[in-house]
């Protein structure tokens, strides 16, 4: 299941596609919600690793508007829980991720993103 945390870590890696290759844009997604145990420390520790804007955009695309557009200075418990939900409990089961730079299309099926490239795309 492609969680939004995973999506927040995936970039296009087609040969020569080295700028504006993140985030990949979701298209035609089917999602499922699945609960996950909340660990506020882990969510807090993940903060520096996140691209907040990309996360908010991805969340909005799948119908979740709970996160503020800018990463807040302080995260209270309520916001940590919302972040936990967005990062770990929204699963993209089917769909496509498209590179904003080169338009390469990476499919998601059965909750797994296929990031394999053809030989000429690897270089």
């Amino acid at each position, binding site marked *: 299941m492609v969680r939004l945390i995973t999506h927040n*870590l995936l*970039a296009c890696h087609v040969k020569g596609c080295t700028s504006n290759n993140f985030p990949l844009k979701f298209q035609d997604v089917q999602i499922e919600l699945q609960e996950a145990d909340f660990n506020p420390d882990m969510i807090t520790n993940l903060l520096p690793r996140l691209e907040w804007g990309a996360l908010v955009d991805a969340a909005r695309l799948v119908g979740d508007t709970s996160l503020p557009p800018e990463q807040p200075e302080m995260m209270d418990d309520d916001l940590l829980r919302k972040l936990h939900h967005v990062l770990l409990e929204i699963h993209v089961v089917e769909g496509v991720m498209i590179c904003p730079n080169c338009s390469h299309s990476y499919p998601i099926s059965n909750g797994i993103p296929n990031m394999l490239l053809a030989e000429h795309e690897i270089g």
Partner: protein
Amino acid sequence: MIPTPDLSHLSDDDKLNVYDPAEDTFLLLDGLEKDAEQLKDQQPLICLEIGSGSGCVSAFLGSILGPANALYLCTDINERASICTLATGRQNRIPLNSITCDLSRPLLTRLRHSVDVIIFNPPYVPTDHHEASHSQDAAGIAGSWAGGLDGMEVTNRFLDIVGELLSACGKFYLVALAQNNIPDIRQRMQEKFDLDSEIVIQRRVRREHLHIVRFSRRPSKV
């Protein structure tokens, strides 16, 4: 003793297409278990397994560290393996995040110096180059063992970039055979990437002399 992950959900067909845990897998589990206290003390946040296969090893790591205490990323070139990994995660209640890809390519941009535990049980069997290359292209079960020259062709590609992924206190666990020339691997990683290493555990199994090598940065450098 941490129990081996439950793999009862894997079908016979799964085992034909995805590497069924064997002595090398179990040695890796033993090595991780030996390091369990050290790993827990490290409090890793992001864990990455390259070539997760059945998902057995990442599920085991998850039971050492705790399902909600880290992000578990798993890659495999074989889509069937990615599916098995997800299923093994579910079966063992460890949230595993599977990505079908070659090594770690789509993660390199975002995970620079960010991964705290990296695990790779590579295709380490010495074969001819064409067998290794073809097996990777086919992305089937042979890709899980055919290693080309000295059994190092796939491993070397990953060794070239593992330093990019490893965090300051990160640990990288590699399964290797004596035939892979382990002293040479260790020396190269030291000279090129400033990574110290230690043999965590080793075992002779039939014709294979298997080792689990742990690499880490020397404390003062990033």
